[in-house]
């Protein structure tokens, strides 16, 4: 995908548009983009300064401007004291900073593409670099495309995230949308830790059911369901949105606590509702004993209905 945007690979179908212009046939050098790779790609015989100046020189930027620009980027990336070191003697994360710097240094780029750039970085440093990138993004205001399998990384920078599944974009939305209304069961599973509870269900009167449990649905959902023929029905609800109360009431379901995982800041409770296992996320003060009953409720606005893996949405 990234390589199609940058032009390193030709798409077999469809168009790539930059600012509305078709660029399919343009080679990467004519597309005005920068790319940062998974592993630091640096010119190791040059100094850090020369590395950063390289794309500018190739673009015939005047020498005085190069100097200013390199200094600027080096400051942002906090490598200004290393400018005159040979690039090969840097540590892995410094190298990656340099290679990011080479992407950022050009002022005329229409987009910067990142291909999992933080894979090689130590977890402690990832925090810092992520923050740095976010700041850079806000400071320079350019289009960035970021590829990652790490959801935290994804949502840190992104205004919008495209979730890819099987070579297809299944949802393109803000982090909030991805979290609150995942468009596809894969998005539900992939975004969030733990992922969404997804349960296979069947049609029942007024809603759907699994085992002996009946889940009532909104009327518009029922309407849509009537028009659909597919039998592949699923409902999803995020562990965060399942409510727990100690007492039974009309809209609660009795479930059995199987396991409680204490993760310090929160707890993940595994419960059994009929035959179905569900994960419930509770804060650290939650307490219950294993094999004891608790009462769950599923707020309707968080209960998502999926037909053929895709979300059923209310028509406007």
């Amino acid at each position, binding site marked *: 995908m990234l390589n199609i945007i940058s032009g390193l690979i030709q798409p077999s179908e469809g168009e790539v548009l930059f600012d509305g212009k078709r660029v399919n046939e343009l080679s990467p050098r004519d597309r005005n983009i920068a790319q940062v790779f998974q592993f630091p790609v640096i010119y190791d015989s040059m100094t850090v300064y020369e590395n950063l100046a390289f794309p500018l020189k190739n673009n015939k930027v005047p020498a005085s401007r190069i100097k200013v620009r390199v200094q600027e980027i080096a400051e942002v990336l906090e490598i200004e004291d290393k400018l005159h070191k040979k690039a090969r003697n840097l540590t892995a994360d410094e190298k990656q900073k340099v290679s990011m710097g080479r992407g950022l240094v050009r002022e005329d780029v229409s987009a910067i593409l990142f291909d999992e750039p933080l894979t090689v970085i*130590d*977890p*402690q440093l990832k*925090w810092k670099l*992520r*923050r740095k990138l*976010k*700041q850079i993004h*806000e400071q320079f205001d350019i289009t960035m495309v970021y590829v990652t*399998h*790490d*959801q*935290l990384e994804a*949502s*840190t920078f992104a205004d919008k995230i495209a979730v890819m599944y099987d070579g297809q974009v299944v949802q393109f939305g*803000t*982090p*909030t949308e*991805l*979290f*609150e209304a995942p468009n596809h069961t894969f998005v539900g*599973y*992939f*975004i*969030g*830790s*733990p*992922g969404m509870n997804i349960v296979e269900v069947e049609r029942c009167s007024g809603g759907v059911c699994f085992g002996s449990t009946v889940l009532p649905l909104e009327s518009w959902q029922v309407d849509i369901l009537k028009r659909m023929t597919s039998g592949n029905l699923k409902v999803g609800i*995020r*562990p*965060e949105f399942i409510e727990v109360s100690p007492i039974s009431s009309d809209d609660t379901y009795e479930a059995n606590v199987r396991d409680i*995982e*204490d*993760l*310090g*800041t*929160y707890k993940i409770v595994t419960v059994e509702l009929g035959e179905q296992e569900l994960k419930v*996320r509770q*804060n*650290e*003060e939650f*307490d219950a004993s294993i094999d004891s009953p608790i009462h769950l409720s599923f707020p309707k606005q968080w209960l998502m209905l999926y037909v053929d893996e895709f979300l059923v949405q209310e028509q406007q």
Partner: protein
Amino acid sequence: MSLTLENLSRSVDGVDYIQGANLTFEAGSFNVLLGRTLAGKTSMMRLMAGLDKPSRGRLLYKGEDVTGQNVQRRNISMIYQQFINYPTLTVYENIASPLRLAKMSKSEIDRRVKETASMLRIESLLKRYPLELSGGQQQRTAMARALVKDATLVLFDEPLVNLDYKLREELRAELRDLFRERQCIAVYATTEANEALALGGTTTLLHEGGVVQTGPVMDVYRAPVNTLAAQLFSEPPMNMIRGRVTDTEVTFDEYSHHALTQELEKLPPGDYWFGIRPSHIALVPANDDDLEISMEVALSEISGSETFMHVENSHFEMVMQLMGVHQYHTGAPVKVYLPINKLFVFDNDEQLVHTPSRVAGGAV
């Protein structure tokens, strides 16, 4: 049946890798070594495995000195960060290889390979070669090979680092279940605090070759012995604030004054470090005596189901961890609330002097 490290040290060419470690691992226990890169986790595991010889100290197994014993004669297995499998053997042969070397009967080998493979859900891959598999499958193969021989000591050296986070979540959960019933000693090294919490068992914090703290995971988490332990075992790192306690009030960074209440009254006057976990800072007050501070948003990071918000003002810089997705723009003013009853207090030597009662016991 336990493994004891007695004043174990290792140094090569004047560089100390492990300094006088004293630890005991019980059979059937799951132990996590938590520390940053180069904290000595791998060195310690290699000493325990017998791959390296300690410069000083002894290694006792069931009370017997096994310090110099050959690796082949110990019944251990190890799983590496890289996916190490025999590339020239099929998955089946990979898993079978320790058993073949133990001269087990063919049918017994077949039974155990199949059993272990199905436990790790790779039974459909047995005829393939490791390099044809995905990273997760390769690591499952490595685990199967380690588990198939019923080792008395199983060592994991950051086995999940190179996998993506959903797979990590899955395998972590499987691991916990796999070891629940086993009578072996499992030792697991990781750099991530969350992983240690998710795996449970006993946690040992390592830093620069030394043991900082050891104990059941929740004990260590709730009562870190010093600021170092608190920082190591908190992700994002615990927020630290300088403060002074006088007879009547506590002052944070000579800026925010607060009347002494509750447990803090017991502290003798003086300078302290106050620590608060990112998850305990809130945007809404939970108690009347919560400390209110006006800050500005520096960055808000959203991880699927939670938000890490970096806030700052001229005096403080803090990270807070919020449930759910919250989008704030950089520079937006916010009021944050620090619950006084969840503050950890460390003295000037950075030793823990006060554990917040609200957090220590767990239950409300």
